[in-house]
């Protein structure tokens, strides 16, 4: 593998408080899906860590442990820009200092994007709300990157360098 990595702009996009959902699957290939409440990318722009609330993402956490497969979709509601990242070495890692604050910033930034679209603030915040003590981190190496913004290019693989 040549080593897919994110551009700086893509890193900024996925860390900016967009709507995030992650999927894995069990050994029968039944998919699991949950909301993600935060995301950070390592300096190499290949290692991606996503934060989930364990009370909501129990099946996903279990499936990642079994399959190591993870797909994560990022979407900004106001522009519909959508990116999907995939990894095949996903695993749970310890939370880093500041992860709870990261998730809080993510929740608020997402709400800020939603407000001009006519949603009420309590709803907008609730969509990415989490319990600090239930936060879990899943880390993976980026193996595939897809542009999924609705339109003729949706689903196309983005080759890097």
């Amino acid at each position, binding site marked *: 593998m040549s080593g897919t990595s994110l551009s700086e702009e893509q890193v900024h996009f996925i860390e900016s408080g967009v709507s995030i959902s992650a999927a894995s699957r069990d050994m029968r290939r039944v998919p699991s899906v949950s*909301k993600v409440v935060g995301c950070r990318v390592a300096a190499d722009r290949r290692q991606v860590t996503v934060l989930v609330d364990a009370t909501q993402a129990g099946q996903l956490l279990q499936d990642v442990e079994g399959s190591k497969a993870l*797909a994560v979709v990022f979407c900004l509601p106001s522009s519909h820009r*959508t990116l999907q990242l995939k990894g095949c070495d996903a695993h749970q890692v310890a939370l880093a200092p500041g992860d709870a604050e990261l998730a809080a910033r993510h929740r608020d930034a997402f709400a800020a994007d939603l407000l001009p679209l006519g949603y009420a603030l309590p*709803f907008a915040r*609730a969509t990415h709300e989490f319990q600090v003590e239930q936060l879990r981190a899943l880390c993976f190496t980026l193996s595939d990157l*897809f542009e999924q913004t609705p339109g003729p290019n949706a689903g196309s693989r983005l080759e890097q360098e």
Partner: protein
Amino acid sequence: MMPSSRSLDAIRPCLEGAVPAAIATCGADGTPNVTLVSQVHYVDASHVALSFQFFNKTRENILANPQATVFLLHPQTSARYRLALLYRRTETAGPLFESMKAKLAGIASNAGMSEVFRLRGADVYQVLDIEHVPGVEVPPAQCAPCHIARLRQLSQRLAACTDLAGLLEQCLEGLASQLEMPQAMVLLLDSQGRKLYTVASHGYPLSGIGSEFPLGRGIIGVAAQFRTPIRIAHLASEYAYSRAIHEHLAEAGLGDRLETEIAFPGLAESHSQLSVPILAAGRLLGVLHVESAEPHRFGYDEEDCLMGLASLLGASILALQQVADNPSEEGAAPLFAAPLQGTPLTVRYYPANSSVFLGEDYLIKGVAGAIFWRLLSLHVEEQRSEFSNRELRIDPALKLPELDDNLEARLILLQRRLAERSRDIVLQKCGRGRLRLLLKRPVLLQQIAAR
């Protein structure tokens, strides 16, 4: 984990397309995929349909592995639900497809994606499980009205009606007062089955009674053609009334011309629209249409309620038609018209399309025009003022269709047009299945032969 025996019926607000859902699938090689889907549509208590818009990984995956998991958010409370789904089939035509296509047009228009979102198919999934995912929820802002209670009140009003005009009036007034749907109209199917004519409306500056709408176009025409409710939550240009009418006129032959002299009564910027077919005895009778300048005004509950109302309306229309066609012979002496004074009003009749002009003003055309001309002719030639529905129905000069045309509806149309357009001629009901023509000025009848 919370119990998962929840019914799809309880989470229908999540299935309005107000918030995109996430769908996870898994390929044959075990690679998961997750993407957003604009529309997860309620089909019945155990099936949903997802909008298939693009050939993508999700599509490829469900064909190889029919298991999918969808994450939904309630658009007011943010309650989270996970649906375990099994892909069953794709529908590319028919009622479900048309309902989803119209709804998607509204969603696309609201998202600025009108040129991008196009429904290729309705992917139907069986719902295997519904999980209420724990998390922070916001209390709903308002308590939804109990539609079944409102419908019960409205059905009692309808049951008390003894003629079609009263029925239509009660239905539209009830929609406004009991269901808070003040902009509404009833259109009936023409006997040729290719267009609908407006027979009653409520909440518009001009009634638009007598205006026509093509079958198969726009929300109203598609609801009629596919006999299915069609609903959109946002203004979508492809479903604008004027567009449907213009497209029809551009393509239709002369023989299929729509009434264009009478403007259609819809709102100029209608964000929410809901059209339901009026069906009875296996036939399409017409369409009940409501609209609102507010987006997201009509949901699944309103759609169900209107379908119930339309059924009631359909059965009542047929029943009252029977009554009107069998008029009471109350034995009153026939009323003969007294000679009138004053300047005669010239009434011109064009048999080519049965159009009638009062002086220079257009009144009506088609079946209602022909009936009006016949009434005036009988009035002038035989000095008669009272007529029965039955004699009109069998009148060889009129050649009315035996079954498929609702004579009573045509008479309502004529009555309303006269009330709106003339001070000199009045058409009244005078008993069951009987009508009276009252003239305040003499008339001069001119039949203009086709050239």
